[in-house]
Every structure is written in structure tokens, then in C-alpha cells.
């Protein structure tokens, strides 16, 4: 069950990561774990904690400098602040996807780290997903634990109200 859930959540994170960077006009392509950049090349890392009745855990987004510069071309704020916001937006997308399956989670506020001291163990099952941009790398991984017996639904429950889509504006 846990492996099924992990595979499903990894797929959600994979798609959400590509969609997020695409929204900033940055195409990121999946790469093998062996292409994980040297840890000293990682500029910054954002961590989003989350929890709910069925699952809890953390999502980590780490990038080299170039994707941060591309998605924040005016260099507003600090790299650490921006990677936190990107992690927040990525986890927001993951949350919205889970909501479409009837799974609710609550998000914490993001925490930022310098990337230089990160050293993920690449040969583990829960290894980072690695993406290459036109210049630089994006790495993301999610580490979850699930309530006993919980199985991530594969389709939306009937009658579920969809979440507001990213970029949409509602005026009341």
C-alpha cells in the first residue's frame, strides 16, 4: 500500500513540478538520478511541511542558481525567499491535485536552507526527482507517511467541488 501511495504521490509531484516551472516559462525535463548536480551547485532549498487525516510529510525543492534567476528575472527578494515561495507554490499545486481526489491536507509555511550542505542519498527508494532546465537543475522530493490502511484514490469521488485553478481570479 505504501509503495502504491508513494508512486502515486511521486507522479503528482512530477507533473506539478513541470507545470509550475512551465507557468514561469521554464521547461524542465526529467533526468536520471545520476545527473543530480554536485551539492555545492545547489543554490537554495525550500521545505514545505504538511499534514492531514490520511497523510503527512514534507516536500523539498532544491535548485541550482539558474532556475531561480529565470523564474525571478528582476531578482526580487533573496534566493532563499524565492525558493521558499516556489516550494509553497509547488506544494499548493500538489494540495490541489490531492483535493481533486478527495484528500485534504493543511500546509505549513515554508522553511528555506542554503543548498550547499544538502547531500541526498541517491540510491534510496525515496530519492529526488531530477529535472534539467535549459540551464541548471531542479530537484524535488516528497517524503510522506500514511494512516494505516489509507490508499490514495485513483479518481475523484463523485460530486466533489474542484479547487480554484492556479492563475485563476475570482471576484465576489
Amino acid at each position, binding site marked *: 500500500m505504501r509503495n502504491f501511495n508513494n508512486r502515486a504521490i511521486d507522479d503528482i509531484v512530477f507533473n506539478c513540478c513541470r507545470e509550475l516551472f512551465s507557468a514561469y516559462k521554464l521547461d524542465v525535463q526529467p533526468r536520471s538520478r545520476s545527473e543530480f548536480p554536485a551539492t555545492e551547485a545547489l543554490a537554495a532549498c525550500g521545505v514545505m511541511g504538511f499534514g492531514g487525516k490520511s497523510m503527512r510529510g514534507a516536500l523539498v525543492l532544491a535548485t541550482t542558481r539558474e532556475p531561480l534567476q529565470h523564474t525571478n528575472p528582476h531578482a526580487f527578494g533573496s534566493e532563499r525567499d524565492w525558493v521558499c515561495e516556489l516550494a509553497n507554490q509547488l506544494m499548493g499545486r500538489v494540495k490541489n491535485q490531492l483535493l481533486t481526489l478527495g484528500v485534504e491536507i493543511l500546509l505549513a509555511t515554508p522553511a528555506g536552507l542554503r543548498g550547499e550542505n544538502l547531500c541526498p542519498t541517491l540510491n534510496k527508494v525515496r530519492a529526488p526527482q531530477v529535472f534539467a532546465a535549459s540551464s541548471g537543475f531542479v530537484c524535488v522530493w516528497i517524503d510522506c507517511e500514511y494512516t494505516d490502511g489509507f490508499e490514495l484514490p485513483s479518481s475523484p469521488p463523485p460530486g466533489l467541488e474542484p479547487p480554484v485553478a492556479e*492563475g485563476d481570479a475570482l471576484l465576489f
Partner: protein
Amino acid sequence: MAKKILIVDDSATVRQQVRAALVNCFEVVEASDGVEGLEAIVERDDLAAVICDVNMPRMGGLELLQLAGAKGKLVGLPILMLTTEGQPALVKQAKAAGAKGWIVKPFKPELLVAAMRKLAEP
């Protein structure tokens, strides 16, 4: 004189992005969490509208909405929620507490400007 918009967000980057989007139409003032945002709403009488994140340290946007409403500060002061959250229950909660709009990040600058023109310049 340009109307004044308060942006409440714990990300300095997002505050600056919002400022850059609105700078040609509005004057922008900033608060970095719900506590600062509520203080600004209570103390200032020159705000035309507020843009507010939902998940922030110390005080979130929904709590800010409820407290500002309880102090009678939402009369004539439209608040737009700008957040990564898209959960319908949260949108309904914000609407019931007096929010006038909801945008899910990342935002398109032209969409934000159009929304703020509708809200702050009715």
C-alpha cells in the same frame, strides 16, 4: 494621487512582484504577515484595497479577515486573497468573512491589475 494598496505576504519576493505589477496604477505599501497587515488596516485610513496571502507566520490571511471585520474595518475596504490555496472551503470561508476576490498563485500581472482596478476603483 494614486490610490494606496496594501500587500500582505510573508514573501518579500512576492511583495516586490506585486509592487512591480501595480506600480503604474497604484501606490503600494507592504506588510510581512497578518499581524502587521491588521495593524496597517486598523491604523491607516488611506487604503483603497488590500491584497493578502492566506498562509503566513504569526497570523494568516483568514484570521486577519475575521479580525478586521470584527473591528468594522472591511466596510469600503475590498480585500483580495492572493495565495497558493485553491480549496473551495477556504474560498467560501474568505468570502463569508468579507473578502472580495481570490487569485491562486502564480499570478498574471495584467490579471492582478485588472482585478485591483475593479475592486479599488469601482
